C-alpha cells in the first residue's frame, strides 16, 4: 500500500532531475506532477440531460476548467422559421423546450400577437395562464426528480414521474397530445377546454401540495442530499447578471426578477402570487427556489380557474386569426380567409418586436423582424437554456468531479432549446 505513491514520487523526481542535470535541455514544467487531465463528458452521457458535451480539465478530483460544446441537436429552427408562415412555426416551438411545450406555444403566440397588434379574448388568456403554469409544474417536476437522481436518490424520481404522468393525462385532454401539444393559435387557442378538464386540473392541484410535500420530506433533511448540494456551484448575484442568467437560477441568487411580475403579460397582473427568492446562489438554493415556485404555480392555477370567464377563445380578427373549421365548410367569407391565411399567412405590419415571457427555465424571448410578408424575415429565439449554460464553467470551477453532475442538473438545461 505504502509503496505505490513513493514509486510515483521517485518517477516524477527523476524526470525533473533528468531535465535539470542535462545542460542542453530547456524543458519547462508547467505542471511538474502531471496531475492535470482532460475528461470528455458527453454528448452521450446519462447525466448531462441531453446531448451536452463538456470538456472538463481536472487536477486530481478538482475541476480546473470546463468548456461546454453545443450543437449536437442543432436543427436550424431559425432558418426554418424564415420559410414558414407564422402558424406553421407553432409545432416547432414544441420541440424547443420539450419539457414544457405549452408555455413555449403560449409565449410564441403572444410574440406574434404583439407584432400583429391583436389580443386573444379573456378566456383564452386565462386558459393560457393555466397551461403555462401546468407546463412549469411539469418541467420543474422532471427537474426535481433528475436532480435527486443525479445525487443518488432514486425514489424521488419515481414519485415526480408519477405526478408528471397525471399532468400528461391533463395535457392529452386539453390538447389531444401528451408531448407535442401545439395548442395555441395566433389570436387564441386550438380549442376551448373540453368539459371535465377543469375538474381534472382542480383535483390535480388540490393533491399536489401533499405530493410535493412527500418529496420534500425525503430531501429537505436528507443529510446526503443536503451535503451534496449545499455550497456546491455557488454563483454571486453580480456574476449571474453579467452572464445573463435568468429564471430560477437568478432568483436563487437573490435577484427578484420575474417577467410575470416585472413585465406582466397574460393575466398575471390580476392574480395574487409571490416571487420567492433565495440568497444562497448554490445548488441547494436552486432546489428550494424551484420547489417554492411550484407552490406559487399551484396558487396561480387555482386563482385562474376560479376567475376563468366564459366566452370565445378566438379573437374576432378575420384576416389574422384562423376561422373555425365548421364555419370554413359552410360560409364563403371564412373559406376565403382560411385559404388566404393558410396559403399566404397572416400579413403583419412592417416592424420588429421582441417579446419575452417567463418560461420554466428563464426568459424565453422571440425577436421577430417582419417585412410585411406572411413569414418572418428573421425570427430569433432567445432560449434561456442556451444563455444559462454559459455560466456553467463559472459554476463548476473549483468543484469536485462528482459535483459536476449535480451542478449541471441544478441549472436545468434542455438541449432542444439550447441548440435550437
Amino acid at each position, binding site marked *: 500500500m505504502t509503496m505505490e505513491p513513493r514509486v510515483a514520487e521517485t518517477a516524477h523526481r527523476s524526470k525533473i532531475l533528468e531535465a535539470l542535470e542535462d545542460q542542453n535541455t530547456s524543458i519547462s514544467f508547467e505542471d511538474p506532477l502531471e496531475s492535470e487531465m482532460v475528461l470528455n463528458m458527453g454528448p452521450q452521457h446519462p447525466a448531462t440531460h441531453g446531448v451536452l458535451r463538456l470538456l472538463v480539465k481536472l487536477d486530481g478530483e478538482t475541476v480546473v476548467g470546463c468548456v461546454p460544446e453545443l450543437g449536437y441537436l442543432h436543427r436550424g429552427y431559425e432558418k426554418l422559421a424564415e420559410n414558414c408562415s407564422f402558424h406553421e412555426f407553432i409545432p416547432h416551438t414544441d420541440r424547443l423546450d420539450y419539457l414544457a411545450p405549452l408555455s413555449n406555444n403560449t409565449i410564441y403566440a403572444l410574440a406574434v400577437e404583439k407584432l400583429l397588434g391583436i389580443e386573444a379574448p379573456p378566456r383564452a388568456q386565462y386558459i393560457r395562464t393555466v397551461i403555462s403554469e401546468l407546463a412549469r409544474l411539469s418541467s420543474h417536476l422532471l427537474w426535481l426528480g433528475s436532480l435527486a437522481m443525479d445525487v443518488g436518490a432514486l425514489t424521488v424520481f419515481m414519485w415526480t414521474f408519477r405526478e408528471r404522468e397525471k399532468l400528461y393525462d391533463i395535457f392529452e385532454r386539453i390538447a389531444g397530445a401528451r408531448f407535442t401539444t401545439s395548442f395555441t393559435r395566433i389570436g387564441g387557442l386550438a380549442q376551448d377546454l373540453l368539459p371535465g378538464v377543469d375538474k381534472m386540473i382542480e383535483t390535480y392541484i388540490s393533491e399536489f401540495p401533499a405530493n410535493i410535500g412527500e418529496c420534500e420530506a425525503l430531501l429537505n433533511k436528507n443529510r446526503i442530499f443536503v451535503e451534496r448540494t449545499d455550497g456546491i456551484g455557488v454563483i454571486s448575484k453580480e456574476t449571474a447578471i*453579467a*452572464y445573463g442568467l435568468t429564471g430560477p437560477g437568478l432568483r436563487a441568487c437573490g435577484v427578484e426578477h420575474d417577467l410575470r411580475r416585472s413585465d406582466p403579460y397574460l393575466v398575471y397582473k390580476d392574480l395574487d402570487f409571490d416571487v420567492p427568492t433565495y440568497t444562497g446562489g448554490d445548488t441547494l438554493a436552486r432546489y428550494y427556489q424551484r420547489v417554492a415556485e411550484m407552490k406559487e404555480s399551484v396558487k396561480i392555477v387555482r386563482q385562474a380557474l376560479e376567475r376563468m370567464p366564459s366566452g370565445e377563445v378566438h379573437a374576432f380578427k378575420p384576416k389574422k386569426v384562423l376561422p373555425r373549421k365548421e364555419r370554413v365548410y359552410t360560409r364563403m367569407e371564412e373559406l376565403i380567409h382560411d385559404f388566404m391565411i393558410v396559403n399566404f399567412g397572416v400579413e403583419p405590419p412592417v416592424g420588429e418586436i421582441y417579446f419575452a415571457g417567463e418560461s420554466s427555465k428563464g426568459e424565453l424571448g422571440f425577436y421577430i423582424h417582419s417585412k410585411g410578408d406572411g413569414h418572418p424575415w*428573421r425570427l430569433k429565439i432567445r432560449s434561456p437554456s442556451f444563455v444559462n449554460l454559459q455560466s456553467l464553467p463559472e459554476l463548476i470551477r473549483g468543484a469536485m468531479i462528482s459535483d459536476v453532475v449535480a451542478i449541471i442538473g441544478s441549472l436545468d438545461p434542455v438541449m432542444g432549446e439550447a441548440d435550437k
Partner: protein
Amino acid sequence: MNQAILESLKARFGEAIVSSGEFRNELTVVVAKDRIVDVCTCLKDSKEFSFDLLADLCGIDMYSPTHRFGVIYNLYSLTNKIRIRLKTFVEEDDPHVRTVTGVWPTANWHERETFDMFGIIFDGHPDLRRIYMPEEFEHFPLRKDFPLMGIPGSLFLPKK
C-alpha cells in the same frame, strides 16, 4: 420613457445615433458601428439607464441594397424594468464589429452564434469559434443566400 432615453442618448453621442424608431412601444436605436461599445458601456454603467442585462444579441441579414447585415442588441434594465434595442449595420465587404463581451460577459456565446450563422466577425472576442456548426463547415447558414435545403457535400459526415 422611451423619448427621454433617446433624447439623453442623442445629447451624449450626437452623430453616433444614426436613427431611431418606435414600434409597439419598443424603442430601436441605430448606432454607428464604431461607437457601439461606447454606447453599450454608457447604457450599462450610467445610473440613469443601468441596462445591466443583455437579454439577447443576434444578427440579421437585411439583404437590401443599403445594408447587408445588422447586429441587434436587446437590453433590459433590472432596476428600471425597461427594454431598449440597439442596432448597428455591418457590410459584407467588411463584416467586422467590436465585441461587447467586455461590457456584458454573456455576449460571448451570443456573438459566437452570430459569427457561426452570419459570418460577422467580432473584433476582440476572446474565443470566436463556431458554436453550433462543425468547425470545418465553410458556409454561414442563416445568410439569405444559403439555401434552405443546405449545400450538398458541405457537411462532413463520418465514413461508414
